């Protein structure tokens, strides 16, 4: 009975249901361009891209709900590979099926390819410049703040009980102090939710 639900179309048609799939219409070009812009302007890798992706696809465009974006991040961190690429694949697929995934991931990686290919030849001369070092000394603390703001924004709607706060804190401790793999942490948290039913079954 579930066979019909797997098709690429269904994903865009259930905004009426439980509010968990609130996908608004998005053109492939718009999706490509959104991820292209994020890919072209984000220095510091996947975790830095997360707040920008969130700002665009959740806050600004309303393509996916906050809850759905968090699901995308959970999957992006459980699956192997670059977080930003994984997130773009999931969001693209949620919006427009396989074509959407292709448009988003192309937008996400094309700026990197172009910029790296251009820079590879001149890098040795640029990187040693003091002014370049100084610029990055300014960017790095800002990166930390941006990532923290993403954690707060995404945490607010999903941390509503002591149990949920405990899971969030435990996850942060496992990764930053105990150096446990994020993929393993996501799996452990999923099991904790499944076994304890934190927050009840209503959500």
């Amino acid at each position: 009975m579930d066979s019909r639900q797997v098709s690429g179309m269904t994903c865009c048609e259930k905004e009426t249901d439980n509010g968990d799939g609130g996908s608004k219409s998005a053109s492939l070009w718009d999706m490509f361009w959104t991820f292209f812009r994020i890919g072209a302007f984000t220095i510091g890798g996947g975790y830095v891209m997360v707040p920008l992706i969130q700002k665009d696809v959740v806050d600004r465009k309303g393509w996916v709900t906050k809850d759905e974006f968090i699901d995308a991040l959970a999957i992006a961190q459980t699956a192997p590979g670059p977080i930003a690429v994984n997130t773009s694949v999931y969001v693209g697929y949620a919006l427009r099926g396989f074509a959407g995934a292709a448009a988003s991931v192309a937008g996400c990686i094309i700026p990197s390819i172009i910029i790296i290919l251009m820079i590879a030849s001149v890098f040795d001369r640029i990187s040693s410049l003091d002014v370049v070092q100084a610029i990055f000394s300014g960017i790095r603390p800002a990166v930390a703040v941006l990532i923290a703001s993403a954690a707060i924004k995404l945490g607010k709607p999903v941390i509503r009980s002591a149990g949920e706060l405990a899971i969030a804190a435990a996850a942060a401790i496992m990764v930053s102090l105990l150096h446990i793999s994020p993929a393993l942490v996501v799996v452990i948290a999923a099991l904790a939710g499944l076994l304890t039913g934190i927050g009840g079954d209503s959500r």
Partner: protein
Amino acid sequence: MNLLHIYLSFAKVGLFTFGGGYAMLPLIESDIIQKRGWLTMAEFTDMVAIAEVTPGPIAVNSATFVGYKLAGIIGGIVATLGVITPSIVIVLALAALVRKYERTATLSRIKVGMRPAVAGLIAAAAISVAKVSMAEPRSYAVAAAAAVMVFVGKIDPILVLAVCGILGALIFF
């Protein structure tokens, strides 16, 4: 070494990297440098620096750079496609599964556990970036300015990065 070898090597790196681009670096080091000898350690260090200071995902940047060093522009493109292939296949499969079982009680219980953990993981990422980037009073000042722009001014993150880059050039140069 040919393009197929480059593609497969990076597909393997992509397949076994969990937790984002930084987790990929040790894999590239062991597979591409030590096992295959395609790069020197000095070139690897360059690669990490380039991947960090250029826009885009670290893993994609690294793959493009190594591929370019090995086989020019085509090499860069092939290595990048290799590194993202496992991601695309696995994420699509997981996305289809999640959407298929979206309304089941089991999946919603799983999600309730996973969602706070994701927020915790991102907080951990912020902590590790802060550890590396905030070494002295001037960087605290930049962080404070960024915090005001982000939390009070609600300014676009890209603009925040640009402003802090300029601030960095002014106070560190």
